[in-house]
């Protein structure tokens, strides 16, 4: 598995250096920045800095801008991870290399692991640029619990990776990238607490929130960055995130295995 992961990491790194996907890189940064700017202007000029009394109850903080800035940055990171990992197999199919890949006895987990570790080198940069931009607009880091934030970020990566496996199998099955992933991303932005706490949402939307690894990841990340709390304070969120990661990893792995066969059959039938 590790040999496949290492080789795939190396292959993607070479491809990235030879033809850097500037448009993806910029669009991910810009969408994060737009989220931050939208929240800033809305808060400053529409609501004139006045918050609903329920906000601090739901969010655990009165600092709305920092709340949204972190939401925008982690959402952008989640989108990049989901997009890059889930598109990998369908890209192989479009570029005519899927058959050559499926001919080998390589581990599919190793293949995806190589993909996710390589793409982190790019998406982490995007994430940091958005955080720097948010810092200039007022994001506060004075209470940050570094170790806890890094650990939660790492757990979030596993969660997004597992979700990407399931998304990838759905995309490969329908041989579609645009509709499937954009529907998911819009839903995630709405139900995961990116720009407002999920407490504002109607009850019937709650199951959708719980299904997104971004929801517990964001809650835990805000605890450690904005409130400076350790891991113990985010125990329930980490448990929730671990459960979703495990579930999506199993369903996604099985889904990818089954979809590969269906796709090859579809191509030849």
């Amino acid at each position, binding site marked *: 598995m590790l040999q496949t992961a290492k080789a795939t990491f190396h292959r993607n790194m*070479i491809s990235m250096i030879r033809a850097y996907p500037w448009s993806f890189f910029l669009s991910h940064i810009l969408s994060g920045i737009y989220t931050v700017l939208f929240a800033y202007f809305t808060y400053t000029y529409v609501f004139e800095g006045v918050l609903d009394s329920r906000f601090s109850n739901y969010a655990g903080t009165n600092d709305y801008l920092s709340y949204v800035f972190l939401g925008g940055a982690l959402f952008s990171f989640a989108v990049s991870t989901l997009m890059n990992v889930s598109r990998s197999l369908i890209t192989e199919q479009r570029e005519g290399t899927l058959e*050559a890949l499926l001919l080998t006895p390589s581990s599919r987990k190793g293949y995806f692991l190589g993909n996710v570790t390589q793409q982190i080198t790019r998406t982490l940069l995007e994430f940091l640029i958005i955080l720097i931009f948010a810092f200039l607009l007022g994001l506060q880091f004075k209470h940050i619990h570094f170790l806890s934030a890094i650990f939660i970020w790492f757990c979030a990566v596993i969660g997004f990776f597992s979700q990407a496996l399931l998304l990838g199998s759905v995309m490969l099955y329908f041989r579609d990238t645009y509709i499937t992933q954009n529907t998911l991303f819009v839903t995630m932005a709405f139900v995961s607490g990116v720009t407002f706490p999920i407490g504002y949402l109607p009850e019937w939307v709650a199951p959708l929130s719980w299904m997104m690894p971004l929801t517990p990841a964001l809650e835990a990340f805000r605890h450690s960055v904005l409130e400076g709390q350790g891991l113990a304070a985010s125990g329930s969120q980490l448990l929730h995130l671990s459960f979703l990661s495990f579930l999506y990893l199993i369903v996604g792995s099985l889904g990818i295995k089954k979809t590969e066969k269906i796709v090859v*059959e579809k191509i030849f039938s």
Partner: protein
Amino acid sequence: MLIVDGVSKVYQSKVREKLWKTTYKEVKAVEDLSFQIEPGKIIGLLGMNGAGKTTTIKMCTTLLEPNSGSITVDGYDAVKDDRKVKSLVNMIAGGERMLYWRLTGRENLNYFGNLYGIKEATLKQRIDLLLKEVGLEDAADTPVEQYSKGMKQRLQIARGLINDPKYLFLDEPTLGLDAPIAKHLRSYVKTLAKEKNKGVLLTSHYIDEVEELCDEVYILDKGRLILHDTPERLTASVFKENSLHIWVPALPNRTQKELEKLLRTYHAKMEIKQSIDLEEIEIIIKTEQEITSSVLALLSNHQLTVLKLVVEQPKLEDAILHLAERRIG
């Protein structure tokens, strides 16, 4: 040995009848097919488009699962032990796919070698050897997107050999290649089978390629095996007649009558064609026996000059077309 035993494959394809109504149509791609590939042998799989050749290769290489029957490779089942089978087989297809265009030739081979779990030192040696064998040493560090079609095809061959497979599947390997490169590839395939003891299964639309390379030929039609034999015996079993074409400046009546009399004794058929400029006559004789010397002796006795002589033996291509026509009829 690779054993295909009673294998069938049915595809289900969607047929959209109305906007919301979809039905499924079943297509039998391969039906009750059995054959074997021994190491060191080259097997040809022939048939018209849609005969089931590519589906057969995909099943043998584990890309597709058969609906019934079994495929075993050196005792390993292609469905249950697919990872073991994958390490024993490989496939080379015609065209420019199955390669990463942004990587160099060496990087492509290195990536695929790693996917086969080959150790670093062995892989490095094998890559150098394969690049040399396919004549890509000088272009080894050039990105594939800058390769010509022939170079990409040669790199595909190297990729297909990176795991040192015991059984190699070649699906139209010379498709679109220039004649010298195709010739080189054919000689290389022969070497792989005869000197390196690899079992090879070849599909091709170029019948000459199959006649030149294959020890045995299987002919498929609509997924079913219709004939299996050596190329020579297969041709002879369908077409026994040779054609003798003789060009002469003129054919006097007396000579023609003598010739007809001679041919009757051999049960041969004759056809006479006059050239457009009326300067020569072509005599076409179809016979199952060797009568060239008798015909030439007769023409010589009548003091006729032979301008040109061609003996045409039946070709495998004719045999396949004939079989296909017979089945359609």
